[in-house]
């Protein structure tokens, strides 16, 4: 028996999702067509609309439907501080922490010299343009504390301090409410190296 070609095409299309192999793709396709045709219509429609409408915000590079995202067009944010993060999910986490009232720039990646991911791949030139628009006074670098995140932070700092901006890096150390007994050695070791005076 030959599989109908549109089914085959659907399986192939689903395989483009990260972590989805041929077996999972087939299971998803059968599920949608057999048990959830309504869900399948909805998925097709929302996917089509999203691809059509979603773009990058002109200012922060995050996903948006308008030229400016909601955050960047808000008048209640402090436009003098810019927080640089790797991924859109990081913006959501920062917002949830409610400690920051400034604006963001989303790199959508990180520098990774060993994988050949350089400044061109992660919009560093756009960041420089954004940070030097005259409004921004301080740039807070909130890239991850991985070796790649650190390399990214270092180069952003070099580029922006050379252009006269104040550049800061979010702190690293023990988690709030953390007990020494349960923290991993790497975090604990670095927290001793980066200790600071008690105010």
């Amino acid at each position: 028996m030959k599989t109908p070609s549109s089914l085959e095409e659907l399986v192939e299309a689903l395989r483009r999702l990260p972590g989805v192999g041929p077996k999972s793709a087939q299971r998803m396709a059968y599920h949608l067509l057999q048990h959830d045709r309504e869900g399948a219509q909805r998925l097709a429609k929302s996917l089509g609309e999203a691809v059509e409408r979603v773009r990058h915000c002109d200012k922060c590079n995050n996903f948006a439907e308008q030229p400016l995202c909601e955050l960047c067009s808000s008048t209640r944010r402090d436009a003098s501080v810019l927080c640089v993060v790797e991924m859109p999910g990081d913006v959501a986490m920062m917002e949830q922490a409610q400690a920051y009232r400034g604006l963001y720039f989303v790199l959508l990646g990180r520098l990774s010299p060993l994988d050949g991911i350089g400044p061109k791949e992660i919009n560093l030139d756009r960041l420089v343009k954004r940070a030097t628009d005259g409004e921004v006074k301080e740039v807070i670098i909130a890239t991850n504390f991985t070796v790649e995140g650190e390399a990214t932070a270092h180069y952003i700092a070099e580029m922006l301090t050379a252009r006269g901006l104040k550049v800061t890096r979010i702190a690293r150390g023990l988690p709030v409410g953390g007990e020494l007994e349960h923290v991993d050695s790497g975090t604990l070791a670095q927290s001793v190296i980066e200790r600071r005076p008690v105010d």
Partner: protein
Amino acid sequence: MAASQRKLQEPQPAFVLHTYPYRETSLIVEAFTRHHGRIGLLAKGARRPKSALRGTLLAFQPLLIQWGGRGELRGLHSAEWQGGVPQLKGIGLMSGFYLNELLLRFLHRDDPHEGLFDLYAEAVSALATNTRIAATLRRFEKFLLGELGYALTLDTEAGSNNPVDPGASYTYVIEKGPVQIRSGDNPTIELSGKTLIDLSSDNYEDPVTLSQSKLLMRHLVGHYLGSRSLHTRQFLVELQQI
């Protein structure tokens, strides 16, 4: 066989050279071990939010690791923090990436280089202080080439046993050694005899030695890599263009 089985049960000194995400929550780790050389490991669940391996499987940190299985990818059983080296930053970090790229490109899997491992550990500690970086890199490059079987002739002239004259000018012929420059020659590499002698004894106090040996090493590393270029070098070039 019995000996290697026994070894596998003891934690092994190692460094992480690079990691790649694998599936939803795992990592593929390229590790450089003291007794087994470069090996590939699968660290299951290492990317889970609460995984203890997150703060441990970091590059440039001395670790003790245990693994099992054979074949191209072994399963990582445990990784224990050894400590003593602050996280690399700035130019030290970039230089560390360069060392890792050299090891990833040049070393074959399961080919132990204990002396190189010890020098790597020393180099990483030195890079963590962000001082004397160039000297650390040159010493490592020279030793690496020797380990790979491309040991450099530095203090005697090519084709003879004449000692290099510190006052003369030399070029370097790959696989042969230093050759005195005659008037009319226009070599790509030009080194003073003193640079060659300093390099052979790992003496990098003189800034002229440092700048000349940098060009020599770039030339040699490039030659042995063949047509493949180094990402880390390309990366630095691109960064300077911004």
